[in-house]
C-alpha cells in the first residue's frame, strides 16, 4: 500500500472534519452527562461517570487494541504485508495505551465511592491492568533498534499475543465473581440495561470518543511516517559521512518511499 496520502505536506480534510466532530460531540456528551441527564435511583450523581468510563474503555479495548491486532495480522499475512499495517498498529497501540490508562483512572475514581476502595485485585481490574502492561511492553519493543522489517514482524507477533487478554477482560465479569458490574450494553442478551436520555447520552459518548480515537490514530500514523522518513534521512547522511571518511563513493539511489532504508555496499572511488 502506498504512503503517498500521508507523506509530504498533506493534511487530509477528513482528518480535520473528524477531529472537529469529535470535539463537538465530546463537548455535547459532557454537557448532557453533567447537567441534563437525571441522577440514578441507586447511584445518584455517581452514575454520570457512565458517560465517560465505558466509552473510554470501549476505545481502548475494542477499537485501539482490536485495530492493532487486525493490523498485526495483516502485516504477518504475506499477501497483505506492508509497513502501512505496522505503522497503523503502532499508532493504534499508543493511543490505546492512553485510553487504557484512563480506563483504570476513571474506574478507580468511580470505584472509591462505590466500593470503598481505590483498587482491588478483582478479575476485571487486574486483567485490564495486565493489558496496559502488555501493550506498554509492545511500545518498548518498538524502541529496540532493528531493521524496519524485523521490528515490524516482532511487534506484530507481540501485538497478537497481547490481544489475547482482551477477551479475558471482556468475559472476566462472566467467568469470575467480581465487584465490577456486568456489561450494560454488550451483554449476553444484547438488551441494554439503560434507557431514555441516559442511553442516548451514553451512545453519544461512544460516538464522540470513537471520533476522537480516529483523529488521534490518523495524526499518530502521520507522525510514524514522518519519524521513519527523518530517521532514514539521518541514517543516510551519517552513512555518507562515514563512507566519505573512508574514501568511497556515496550511493546515490534514493531511500525507498516506505521509509525503510536500503543499504547498498559502497563502491570504492575510482572503480
Amino acid at each position, binding site marked *: 500500500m502506498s504512503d503517498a496520502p500521508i507523506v509530504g505536506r*498533506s493534511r487530509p480534510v477528513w482528518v480535520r472534519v473528524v477531529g472537529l466532530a469529535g470535539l463537538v460531540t*465530546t463537548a455535547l456528551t459532557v454537557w448532557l*452527562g453533567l447537567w441534563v441527564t437525571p441522577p440514578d435511583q441507586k447511584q445518584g450523581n455517581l452514575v454520570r*461517570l457512565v458517560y465517560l468510563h465505558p466509552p473510554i474503555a470501549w476505545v481502548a479495548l475494542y477499537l485501539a487494541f482490536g485495530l492493532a491486532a487486525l493490523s498485526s495480522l495483516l502485516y504477518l499475512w504475506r499477501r497483505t504485508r506492508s509497513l502501512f499495517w505496522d505503522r497503523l498498529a503502532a499508532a493504534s497501540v499508543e493511543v490505546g495505551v*492512553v485510553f487504557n490508562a484512563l480506563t483504570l483512572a476513571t474506574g478507580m475514581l*468511580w470505584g472509591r465511592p462505590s466500593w470503598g476502595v481505590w483498587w482491588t485485585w478483582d478479575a476485571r481490574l487486574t486483567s485490564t491492568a495486565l493489558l496496559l502492561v502488555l501493550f506498554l511492553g509492545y511500545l518498548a519493543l518498538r524502541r529496540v533498534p532493528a531493521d524496519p522489517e524485523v521490528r515490524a514482524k516482532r511487534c506484530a507477533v507481540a501485538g497478537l499475543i497481547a490481544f489475547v487478554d482482551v477477551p479475558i477482560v471482556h468475559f472476566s465479569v462472566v467467568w469470575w465473581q467480581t465487584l465490577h458490574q456486568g456489561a450494560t450494553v454488550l451483554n449476553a442478551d444484547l438488551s441494554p440495561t439503560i434507557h431514555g436520555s441516559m442511553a442516548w447520552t451514553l451512545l453519544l459518548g461512544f460516538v464522540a470518543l470513537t471520533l476522537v480515537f480516529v483523529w488521534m490514530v490518523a495524526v499518530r500514523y502521520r*507522525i510514524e511516517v514522518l519519524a521513519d522518513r527523518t530517521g532514514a534521512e539521518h541514517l543516510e547522511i551519517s552513512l555518507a559521512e562515514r563512507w566519505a571518511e573512508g574514501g568511497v563513493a556515496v550511493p546515490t539511489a534514493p531511500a525507498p518511499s516506505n521509509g525503510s532504508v536500503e543499504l547498498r555496499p559502497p563502491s570504492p572511488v575510482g572503480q
Partner: protein
Amino acid sequence: MSYVDAGYAVGLSVLFLYAIGLVLRRRSLERRVDLAPPADPGQRATEAPPGES
C-alpha cells in the same frame, strides 16, 4: 470536588494534553522534513499527493 468532577477533569484533560502533544510532534517532524535537503530532487514530487503539496 466530587468524584464525578474529578473523573471528567482527569479524563478530558489527559486526552486534551495528549492531542496537543500529537499536534506538536507532527509539526516538529514536518519542519524537520521540510528543512532536510532532498536526496533526489524528483523524490519529493513523486511522494506528495497531487494538489496537496
